[in-house]
């Protein structure tokens, strides 16, 4: 079996395109000798692992919508899961100017609207740090942040001027703090977030739970 597996997986290699993309990223960063401007790459990398759950009725008709986040621009896409339920995702586009966080000397800073906020001693694996700010058009942005200064995660959710949740995205948000934050904000996707975070013991169960959640949202829509 070892030989068969060897012969098989020898043929499974990273695509040239991906190889070039990552190599370029590494090369450019090496030249700059600092890591602070790589938010774009980070967000791009996690875009696939990130989900934005949306009220299907709000977006199904257009099939695409732009959401402005503090962390950049999110484009909403819709699709269908194998079981026929409707799903949505956010592709994030960000730029270095949108860097929300800065890590320095073991400390983590949030670039808040009123200046930098030192989060280092305020982060926890269980309790969320929630930051909110309002845009000129009445949209309110909420950041749920947790983990540690070295290994932090966050999620951003947006509520429009009418108080309707529009969507969100997350980065490295897998801790208890994320569940707690979703509950505190009373996000309509809190159940899904909880299932996803709890899915650690059985990855496949987490995916199944997601599909069921989507089905129920779809039927409500």
């Amino acid at each position, binding site marked *: *079996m070892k030989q068969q597996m*060897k012969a098989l997986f020898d043929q499974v290699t990273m695509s040239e395109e991906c190889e070039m993309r990552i190599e370029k990223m590494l090369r450019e960063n090496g030249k700059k000798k600092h*890591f602070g401007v790589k938010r774009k*790459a980070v967000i791009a990398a996690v875009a696939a692992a990130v989900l934005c*759950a949306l009220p299907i009725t709000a977006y199904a008709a257009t099939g695409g919508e732009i959401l402005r986040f503090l962390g950049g621009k999110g484009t909403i896409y819709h699709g269908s899961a194998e079981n026929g339920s409707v799903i949505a995702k956010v592709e994030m586009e960000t730029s270095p100017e949108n860097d929300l966080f800065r890590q320095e000397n073991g400390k983590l800073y949030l670039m808040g609207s009123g200046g930098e906020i030192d989060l280092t001693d305020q982060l926890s694996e269980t309790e969320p740090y929630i930051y909110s700010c309002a845009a000129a058009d009445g949209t309110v942005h909420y950041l749920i942040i947790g983990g540690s200064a070295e290994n932090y995660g966050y999620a951003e959710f947006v509520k429009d001027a009418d108080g309707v949740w529009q969507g969100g995205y997350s980065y490295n948000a897998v801790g208890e703090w994320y569940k707690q934050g979703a509950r505190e904000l009373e996000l309509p996707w809190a159940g899904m977030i909880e299932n996803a975070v709890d*899915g650690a013991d059985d*990855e496949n169960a987490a*995916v199944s739970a997601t599909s069921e959640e989507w089905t129920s949202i779809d039927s409500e829509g």
Partner: protein
Amino acid sequence: MDVTAIFMEYKDSVFRLALNYTRSIPDAEDICQTVFLKLLRQPSIKPGCEKAWLMQVTANESRNFLRSFWRRNVEPLEDMIPLQETKDRELFKQVMQLKTGYRVVVYLYYYEGYSTEEIGKLLKISKTAVTTRLQRARQQLKKELEESGYETANEGAF
């Protein structure tokens, strides 16, 4: 630390492990990007431990991905990997149909050559759990491959 050299040496190992978790090429590639970005941010790794570090981070990132509540809809994976022979395509299909926990263990054991103890440490499960998963995965593979007409009689190790 020459990250580009490390990338060139281990990129495929990282990709394959991520692929075994995600069963999606775009998602596996995204995970690879995240992993090597983390490598850039890592101040230093003990020489000789680069692969172990990468595999550990890849496993963690892949698990994080599976916990997230977004999964892409993708084309069947076996149609996207240009495998040369029919028997390879059948074996790949069956391996990819194993449960995630079985699939990853099979890959690490048979392809990467890790011991059951090393796999246990990497995946944060007991050595016994690794052995059990391997055994069940082998049984399932043998059964499915025989049913599909794959010649397992000559494979010995099944």
